[in-house]
C-alpha cells in the first residue's frame, strides 16, 4: 500500500506518456512479425530459384551476372536504409518522437551489414569482370564511405549512456551524412569510371526480362528481410529501454523502501 502512495507516482505519468506511442507500436507490430518472416522466406525461395535455375547467363557478363542478384539488392538497401534513418532523424529532431530514435538506432547495424554485403559481392564481381577486386572510383569509394558512416553511427550510439539525449545529436550527424546518398546515386554519371550505369533508368529497362525478374524478386526478398529485422530490432530496443527504466526505478525505490523500513524498525 505504502509503495503506491510514494511521491514518485507523479513522475511515471510523464514517462508513461512519453512511452505511449512505443507502447502502441509494440501492440500492433507483434502481429506483423510472423507474416513478414513468412513472406521473406517465400520470396527468397522464389528469388534464389530464379537466380540459379531460371535465368540465362548474361551475353556480356556470363554467369557472373548471378552475383548481381545479391549485389544490386544490397547496394539498393544500403542507400534505402540510410534514407529511412535520415527520415527518422527528421522525425526525431522535429517531433522528438521516441519511436523515431528507436527506428534510427535499430537500422544502423542492419545498414552496415547490407553495405558490407554490397561491397563484398561487388569486389567478387569486379575481379572476373574488370580484373580487379577494388577500384577507387566514385561509386565504390562513396559506398565505402557509407559503410564507414554506418559503423560510425553504431559507435556513436554506443558512446551515449543517455540514449534519448544522444538521439538528437546522432540525428544531426545522420542528416549531415545524408549528403552521401545523392553522391552515390550520381557518382556513375559524374565520374564516369568503371562502374555500370544504373540498371533502371528513365529511359526504361536496360536489360532483358529474364535477368530483370530475379533481380526484382531478390530485391523484394532482401527488402522484406530488412523490414522484418528492423521491426524485431526496434521492438528489442524498446524492450531494452523499458528494462533500463525499470531497473533504475527499482534501484531508487529499493533505496526509499529500505529507508522507510529501517525508519520503522528504529521507531519500535
Amino acid at each position, binding site marked *: 500500500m505504502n509503495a503506491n502512495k510514494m511521491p514518485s507516482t507523479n513522475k511515471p505519468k510523464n514517462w508513461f506518456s512519453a512511452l505511449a506511442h512505443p507502447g502502441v507500436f509494440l501492440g500492433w507490430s507483434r502481429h506483423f512479425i510472423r507474416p513478414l518472416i513468412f513472406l521473406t522466406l517465400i520470396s527468397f525461395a522464389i528469388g534464389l530459384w530464379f537466380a540459379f535455375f531460371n535465368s540465362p547467363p548474361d551475353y556480356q557478363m556470363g554467369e557472373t551476372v548471378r552475383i548481381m542478384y545479391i549485389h544490386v539488392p544490397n547496394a539498393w538497401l544500403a542507400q534505402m536504409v540510410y534514407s529511412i534513418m535520415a527520415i527518422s532523424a527528421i522525425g526525431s529532431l522535429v517531433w522528438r518522437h521516441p519511436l523515431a530514435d528507436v527506428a534510427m538506432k535499430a537500422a544502423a547495424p542492419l545498414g552496415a551489414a547490407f553495405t558490407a554485403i554490397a561491397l563484398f559481392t561487388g569486389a567478387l564481381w569486379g575481379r572476373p569482370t574488370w580484373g580487379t577486386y*577494388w*577500384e577507387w572510383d566514385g561509386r565504390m569509394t562513396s559506398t*565505402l564511405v557509407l559503410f*564507414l558512416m554506418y559503423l560510425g553511427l553504431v559507435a*556513436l550510439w554506443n558512446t551515449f549512456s543517455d540514449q534519448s539525449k544522444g538521439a538528437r545529436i546522432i540525428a544531426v550527424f545522420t542528416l549531415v551524412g545524408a549528403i552521401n546518398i545523392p553522391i552515390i546515386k550520381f557518382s556513375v554519371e559524374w565520374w564516369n569510371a568503371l562502374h555500370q550505369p544504373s540498371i533502371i533508368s528513365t529511359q526504361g529497362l536496360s536489360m532483358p526480362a529474364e535477368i530483370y525478374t530475379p533481380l526484382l524478386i531478390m530485391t523484394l526478398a532482401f527488402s522484406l528481410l530488412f523490414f522484418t529485422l528492423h521491426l524485431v530490432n526496434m521492438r528489442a530496443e524498446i524492450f531494452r529501454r523499458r528494462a533500463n527504466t525499470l531497473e533504475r526505478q527499482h534501484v531508487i525505490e529499493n533505496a526509499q523502501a529500505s529507508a522507510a523500513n529501517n525508519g520503522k524498525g528504529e521507531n519500535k
Partner: protein
Amino acid sequence: MRAFLIVIGRDLQLAIKNGGATLTQLIFFISIGVIMPIAIGPDKQILADLAPAIIWIAALLSTLLGLDRLFVADHEDGTLLSLHHASISLTSISAAKIISHWLITALPLILATPLLAVMLFMELPQFLATITALLLGTPALAALGAIGAAISVTLKRGGMVAPILILPLAIPILIFGVSAANSFAGAQTSSSAMLFLGAISLLAVAFAPFAISLALKAAEE
C-alpha cells in the same frame, strides 16, 4: 596469476560493454586506409608499393587514439588508488593492462588489415609479411602507448600529450615494420627486420610494466 587474468578479463568485459571505443578505433584505421588512396591517386602500382607504410601509419595513429582511455577512467574513479592494496603488484597489473590494451586495440586492427590490403592492391606475399610484421610489432606499440598513457594520466590534455610523447619512440617500430613488409622479395633484410621487430616487442613488453607502475605511483602523489 589468477588475479592477473582477472584484470585482463575485466578490461575485456568493460571494452565489450563500451563497444563504441574499439569500433571507433577500427573505423579510424579503415578511414586512414580510405583517405590515403584518395590523396595519392588510384594508381595501383604506387598504392601497392606504399601499402605497408600506409597500413603501419594507420595502425600507429589509431592505437594512439585509444590511449587516453587506458588509465584515465581507472584513475578518476579511484580504482588505481585501491589497486595499491591489491594482492597483486602494480607492476603485474600494468603488464595485464598492456595485454588487454593489445587485445582491445591492436588485435581488431590486425583482423581488419585484409580489408585495407584489398583496397590498396597488395599482393599476397606482401600482405602476409605485413600481417606478420604487425603481429610482431604491435605489442611494442601497445607497451609504449601504455607508458605514454600512464605518464599523462593526470594531465588535463593527456589524450593529446601521450601521442606526442610516444610517436618519436615508435619510429624504430615503424622503420622495421615497413621494411619487413616491403623487402619481402629480398627475404634476407625482411627476416632480419622481423627479428628486430620481435626483439623490440619483447624488450618493450618486458620493461614497460615497471615504467608504467612507477608512473602510476607518481601520478597518485
